[in-house]
């Protein structure tokens, strides 16, 4: 309400926020189930408009090191995206990433350790077509995970995706609204953080994401054949990074003081995130 009232009195001004020139920015993931992938771009000033295409760094050298000092180069598969799914990544080992590009400082990450895998997860799913009229039809899926480690030892992330983008028209949106009683505010669309909510000694929870692939008008639904559910154990940096994004996206984030961004790199900005995933492909009836 206050924000609504105050908006009428707002003005946009140039505060001359300091910008110390571009640096390498990276968001990189490493996971035994998915290898390594990184998006490499450069930072921009805090105000203004920028084309993403111009920010991508296409000539970077991306190298992943293991704790023995062995480096593996990660190739670029499309502009700015560097991936090596076949990289052998082992639970419990430490890795770091180093990225260099012309005329920019070399970015080096801290060592990250691959967390323990989810222990014997059990996932039951019930999928049904929801015909309720919310403007578009829903797929409603009940999922039940059990057998996960006690809360606090490891952070968890559940995620749902459509085996990347394959076969879907880019004009369509895919989203899942995880809805739980206490943790609604902890939803970040396709991702859900049970650690924020669950206080029991052992995870054993049910959630029911409404999963949709619809066109921009919300009038047509795309037929899906399969959906991938990931249950990831993640390291603390990964968890903090996701929490940061949650806050940015939340309504109350607007009135809260900005906080220093999660990072574990030097010489640039960004994150090198470690996870250990259990993937489940669920067929849609």
């Amino acid at each position, binding site marked *: 309400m206050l924000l609504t009232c105050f908006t009428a009195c707002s003005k946009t001004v140039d505060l001359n926020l300091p910008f110390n020139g571009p640096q390498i920015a990276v968001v990189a993931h490493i996971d035994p189930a998915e290898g390594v992938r990184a998006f490499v771009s450069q930072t921009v000033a805090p105000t203004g408009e920028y084309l993403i295409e111009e920010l991508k760094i296409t000539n970077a050298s991306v190298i992943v090191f293991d704790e023995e000092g062995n480096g593996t180069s990660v190739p670029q598969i499309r502009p700015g995206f560097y991936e090596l799914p076949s990289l052998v990544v082992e639970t419990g080992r430490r890795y770091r990433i180093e990225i260099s590009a012309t005329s920019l400082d070399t970015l080096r990450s801290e060592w990250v350790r691959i967390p323990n895998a989810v222990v014997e997860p059990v996932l039951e799913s019930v999928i049904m077509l929801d015909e309720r009229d919310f403007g578009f039809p829903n797929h409603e899926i009940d999922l039940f995970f059990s057998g996960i480690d006690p809360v606090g030892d490891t952070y968890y992330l559940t995620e749902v995706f459509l085996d990347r983008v394959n076969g879907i028209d880019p004009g369509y949106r895919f989203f899942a609204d995880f809805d739980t009683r206490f943790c609604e505010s902890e939803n970040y669309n396709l991702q859900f953080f049970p650690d924020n909510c669950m206080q029991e000694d052992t995870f054993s929870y049910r959630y029911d994401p409404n999963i949709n692939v619809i066109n921009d008008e919300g009038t047509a639904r795309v037929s899906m054949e399969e959906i991938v559910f990931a249950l990831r154990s993640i390291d603390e940096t990964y968890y903090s990074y996701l929490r940061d*994004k949650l806050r940015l996206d939340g309504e109350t984030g607007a009135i809260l003081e*900005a906080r220093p961004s999660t990072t574990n790199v030097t010489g640039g900005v960004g994150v090198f995130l470690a996870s250990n995933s259990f993937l489940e492909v669920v067929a849609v009836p």
Partner: protein
Amino acid sequence: MKYLQFILLFLSFVCLGNLSAQTLRGQIRDASTGENLIGAYVVERTTATVAQTDAFGRFTLPVPDDKLISLRLSYLGYEALDTLAAFDKQPLILYLQPDATLPTVEVSSRSDENGARSALATVNVPVELLNAMPAVLGEADPIKSLQLLPGISAGVEGMADLLIRGGTPDQNLVLLDGAKIFNANHLFGLLSPVNPDIVKNITVHKSAFPAKYGRRLSGVVEIDTEEGNKKEWKKSVGIGIINTRFQVSGPLVKDKASVSIGARTAHLSLLNLIAAGQDNGITYLFYDFNVKLNWLTDKSNLSLSFFRNYDNMGIKDAFIGLPVNANFAYGNTTGSARWAWSFGNNLDLVAIATGTRYFYRAEEDITTGSGPRMTTNLSSIRDLNAKVSLTKVFSSVLSVEGGVEATTRAIEPRALTITTDESVENESLVKEVSRDFAGFLSLYLRLGSAVRVELGLRGQYYQLPGAAQSQNFLEPRTLVSYRVSPKSTLSGSYTFMSQPLHMISNNFIGIPTNLWVTANDVAPPATGQQFAVGYTYQEEASQYAFEAYYKSNKNIIDPLPGVGFFESNSSNWEEDVSTGGRNRIFGMEFFHKQTAGRFFGWASYVLSWNRIQYNDVNGGRWYFRQFDRRHDLSLVAGYDLNKKWQVIGNFVVNSGFRLSLPDALYVDAFTNDVIPVVRERYNTKTPLYHRLDLTFRRTVKRSNGRSRILSLGCYNAYGRRNLSFALTEEDLIGGQRPATHIGTVEAVTNDVKLFSLFTFVPFLNYAATF
């Protein structure tokens, strides 16, 4: 042995002093209403001995062994009185006539204080003048007007919070008739909670705190309300843009017992009626209500006071076709009983019992396909306090005040209840019960005609929640003043304070999402020391004052950057805060006030540095706090155009406040997020703040006590867009956010939007007493 010698010498000194004088006791009252006057000065003119009336209008003054005593009486807003009084062992009743002139600054009464305290350590400004100052929307607000005084500043523009010498609002002990008030505001901080018509006296202590006050680090704000007219019934009404208020005051037993009733409510409350049948809309209601009863006898003075302030905002809306009702309410309810008893032989007793209940409640009622669901979030504080003190005047050299104080307090930081058709679920932070006990002793010494010394000691014991945790503090208080010349005084003070409560503030506005919590082993009680040195020079029509201070506070807490009450889901508030903060504040205050014929005014300038350090913020380095203001200048001026019309203006200019803003952006193309890079807390400073306010007042005062006051003016006369807060606003072009795995964002934009709350705001206000 040395101590024994010292005590014997001291007692001899005191006894000699006792033999050298007699003691005059009495009360000073308002001649028109019979009310006691708090903080009035009585000066014995031949020796220039000074006494000040207490909260019951009583004074005790050592006087020479003469039959006729030459006295000068003065009080803010009243005509000074020079009189000869015959000495009597019975208390003397003296009356002062209210000043019939228009509100103005007072200079002369300060000289009567004889330089006991620095003019900047304790502030006492006529309430009538504070009420006359231009304010947002023209609503008289004597507490907010204090922000124009040196060392007292506002946080966000327009808000009623008082930041005293760099402290935070929770570090102020706000007492209404002796009872504590928490989150003291209406309308999310736009107005202070007390009806201006019923405020009789406001005193602010910024340093040299008397030992009878404790449990807060930065300031003590004493607000006393009217006791009621003991002569005749009076009624007053006031109508402004935001609210309407009234007061009724009159004798229950003439010259003995009186009652004062005041109330105020918002015109916004009418929205409730309009919105009653609507599906969508916002409603707002606030009111405050005061009742005070007072009985006077020759030897005792009893006051019973009740106060309640309440705010309630309702929102009716719909979310994806589902009805949503939200409600937000908060308020204080306080009660106090104060009893003063004179035993004779210069021994007086004051006993105060107070109770406060503060609460806020947020409710959301939403009906979904699976049925209704109500979420209620409740936070509350219950505080009971009792204090007994004895004051004994031994001689013209020594008087002693001592007493004990006990408090029990229960804080329920947050209780979340979710109710559906099928279940009721509760999630609460642990209820915190704590107790405080204190003993205090103050010695007031007058050494010769030039030196005055106040020595105080407060022993404070906190019984805090947790594993039988207890904390003790010995808190020395010292004030020494030296009268350099009849016109100038040098003073120095040292105080040690402790605070058993913390407030987790959102640092934004004074909305009661600020969470009060009790100190514990993770966040121990905060402590603070203050050293101050002051100089006051005073002439008949002007006063110059300077005070430099250094404050060092420990165990301060702040929310971690970006953590807000709504966002926090942890069951322990300790996880959301930085603890063990060290705060150092250094400042210099300059003050000059002047009267010259029809003109009056003051100028106040503060130069200060306010730094804090936490191990887990900004890499453990010291950084400037949000409202660190290097320069703060206030100019207040008034001019009497004629006997009825008066113009008052104030000009304020100060350094901006600090913000945490990103210094770069980058993109997470896996989830289509724009990630702001914020490296340091409070890395940016807003531009210079300045504004000019003007008010024209027409005051008609009649001899029968009736009056009419019309105020018209404007806040921020030249429409300066001062900045109150900033939001960053990222946008994505060609893609969607939140994330999808489909489509590619083509571009990002980012703006920093700075919000200005109040530009040019005209106002009109009318008040009448009949």
